[in-house]
């Protein structure tokens, strides 16, 4: 399959010994000049890159409190060193969260602190060199910004923030990653990550309507650009066709249908994902999000609901109100925005859906908490609702549910290995190795409880697992959407 070895799943997870330089050469393709320029970055490495990088670092230090606080506060206690799935899977010490931070911290110290200016050797401060820049490019693209390390750090130091800053600096000197930057460009020009234009989207949705009709005999609608609909659904564009995503979309449609609530997609804002967050660019993140506000106003909807997507939900839940709020034009009786799981859960609570759990009897299900939902957002009105609500939804539609081991789910959930802008073939080795801890936990419930399927609520998780499951001797269709389970169990037609 590839020129690297898939790590071995052991009976008990082990903290590996470090192997320096294990992933040193690994890095994603560099963005082409036209992709860089579309986002307002220089096309290629600028001549005075050192100066630009240091200036940019100074700029960011003044804009984000997290940076000076995190860079100053780390005591090198080591508590985070065994918490990153990329370290556990690759054994490269620079993939330990604190070491990843140190790549930036040692330059910060050299140029911005008294100790680093006058006693660099003592505090491990170094000049910004070509080599350091290469390390940044390599190791800031071996972090999925999953925030697992921040849960376990005594000061909440979030390496994701450092990685975002690192990528911002890299973009500022002209070497961005192809994958993220090209995709953001597509959103600006076409409206979604996949570059799927409006007419193609319409065709696809019509096709889905036909399939559902054929399957169930019921006219379930998958509308787009319908003015005056009650709900605007913002969902990752992967939901429009790829397996297993599209079965989730089919599920959302069935839920709306049964709830009797009019809804629509938007061809202008046909993307929930917001890769602006991955590259730490506030401006790009805002520009991507603004399309959604515009679409909501244009279509005159009363509510915005977000489909299954992890970091999209983070941006929507945590950032939208700041970036594109206030949402005073929406119906104040509903949270703005609302997650599709919150919506379905509400209907289930009210008894508004007729569910036939036995439709899922051929499945034994576990649930993968997506990192950005788990550690960077919430559902419902109490802390931790993001863990309870999707599980309650699954249990309401499915008789066989088993959780994976404590410490690998909930706030301690392991990232799928493909988040944060790493979901690209040029980083396959990082993705496969980073999936090790999740695969280990999955293997455990498969052996213990005969689990057949892992459900998730994130387009990146689903794509990533479909790709890496086979490396660990699972099959690619063992990953499914939560709303596929829901869709299969919903009894269409008048309420019985």
């Amino acid at each position: 399959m590839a020129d690297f070895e898939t790590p071995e799943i052991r009976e008990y997870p082990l903290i590996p010994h470090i192997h320096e330089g294990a992933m040193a050469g690994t890095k994603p393709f560099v963005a082409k000049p036209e992709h860089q320029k579309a986002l307002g970055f220089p096309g290629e490495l600028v001549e005075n890159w050192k100066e630009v990088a240091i200036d940019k670092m100074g700029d960011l230090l003044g804009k984000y409190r997290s940076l000076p606080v995190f860079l100053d506060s780390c005591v090198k206690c080591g508590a985070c060193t065994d918490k990153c799935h990329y370290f556990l899977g690759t054994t490269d010490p620079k993939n330990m969260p604190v070491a990843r931070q140190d790549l930036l911290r040692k330059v910060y110290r050299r140029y911005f602190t008294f100790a680093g200016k006058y006693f660099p050797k003592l505090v491990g401060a170094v000049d910004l060199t070509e080599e350091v820049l290469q390390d940044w490019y390599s190791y800031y693209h071996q972090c999925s910004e999953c925030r697992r390390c921040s849960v376990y750090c005594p000061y909440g130091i979030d390496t994701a923030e450092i990685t975002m800053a690192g990528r911002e600096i890299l973009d500022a000197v002209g070497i961005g990653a192809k994958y993220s930057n090209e995709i953001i460009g597509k959103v600006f020009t076409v409206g979604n990550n996949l570059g799927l234009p409006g007419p193609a989207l319409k065709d696809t949705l019509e096709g889905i309507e036909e399939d559902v009709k054929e399957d169930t005999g019921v006219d379930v609608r998958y509308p787009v650009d319908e003015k005056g609909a009650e709900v605007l659904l913002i969902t990752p564009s992967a939901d429009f066709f790829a397996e297993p995503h599209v079965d989730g979309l089919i599920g959302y449609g069935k839920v709306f249908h049964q709830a009797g609530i009019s809804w629509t997609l938007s061809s202008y804002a046909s993307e929930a994902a917001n890769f602006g967050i991955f590259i730490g660019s506030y401006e790009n993140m805002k520009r991507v999000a603004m399309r959604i506000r515009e679409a909501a106003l244009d279509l005159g909807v009363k509510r915005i609901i977000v489909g299954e997507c992890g970091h999209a939900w983070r941006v929507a839940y945590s950032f939208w109100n700041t970036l594109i709020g206030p949402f005073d034009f929406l119906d104040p009786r509903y949270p703005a925005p609302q997650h599709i799981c919150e919506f379905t859960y509400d209907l289930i609570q009210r008894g508004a859906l007729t569910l036939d759990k036995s439709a899922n009897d051929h499945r034994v299900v576990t649930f993968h908490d997506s990192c950005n939902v788990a550690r960077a957002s919430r559902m419902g009105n109490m802390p931790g609702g993001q863990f309870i609500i999707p599980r309650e939804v699954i249990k309401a539609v499915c008789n066989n549910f088993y959780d994976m081991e404590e410490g690998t789910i909930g706030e301690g959930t392991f990232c799928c290995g493909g988040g944060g802008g790493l979901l690209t073939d040029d980083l396959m080795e990082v993705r496969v190795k980073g999936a090790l801890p999740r695969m280990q936990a999955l293997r455990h419930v498969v052996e213990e409880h005969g689990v057949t399927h892992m459900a998730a609520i994130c387009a990146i998780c689903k794509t990533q697992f479909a790709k890496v499951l086979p490396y660990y001797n699972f099959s690619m269709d063992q990953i499914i959407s939560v709303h596929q389970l829901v869709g299969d169990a919903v009894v269409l037609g008048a309420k019985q």
Partner: protein
Amino acid sequence: MDFLSIAYALVFYFATFVLVVGVGRKIVQYARTPAPLKIPTTPAPTTGTGVALRLGGEVVFFTSLFKSNKWIWVFGWLFHFCLLLEVLRHLRYFIQPVWWWVALIQPFGKYAAYGMVIGLLGLWGRRFFVDRVRYISAPSDHLMLVLLLAIAGSGMLMTFVDHTDIISLKAFVLGLLYGHWQPLPADPLLLIHLGLVAALMIVFPFSKLLHGPGLLFSPTRNQIDNPREKRHVTPWATDTGAGTAG
């Protein structure tokens, strides 16, 4: 007044100045730098009281560290708790008459020295024996532990082996506080102890010892999880033209 007493008096004024101004400047920097986005590590409290409890738990019990690594927690918490006891016990040199509770903790404070040393040695051991921690340790990380161990060690030698003249020392300290200087007992152990303490005060604002104030300013820990209910706005971020329509 002998030269040594004057030198130590000046060093302590200088160290106090550096500590107060240095840490003060850092706190002002942290407080003035905006946190443009809501980034609490969730599940996070949804109220201000909840956040106060979260931070309180981190300061008093090191809750996150407890979740993450029991060895570091045991050694680290032991060290900090004993350090706190030591500092409180030392208040007797700075106040007259000595508060009743400072008198009460004197015997515990005395033995806290052992706890401090055990904690520090445990933490230091990790820097040699755990390959991951060895990898991330800079010379300054070792030196900080050495410094604290030397402070504790010199203190313990005075307490348990070779006493110093505590009465004159207290006169010296109160003299510093009230501005009529008194001579300092020229005891080598005491001079070492005090010299190292002054060094600790001076490096504080320039080192990782900023983790104390840092924790309180950490946005992942001190933000309320209420972005949908309350629009979070900060100067530079919101100026970029939000809410153009509607």
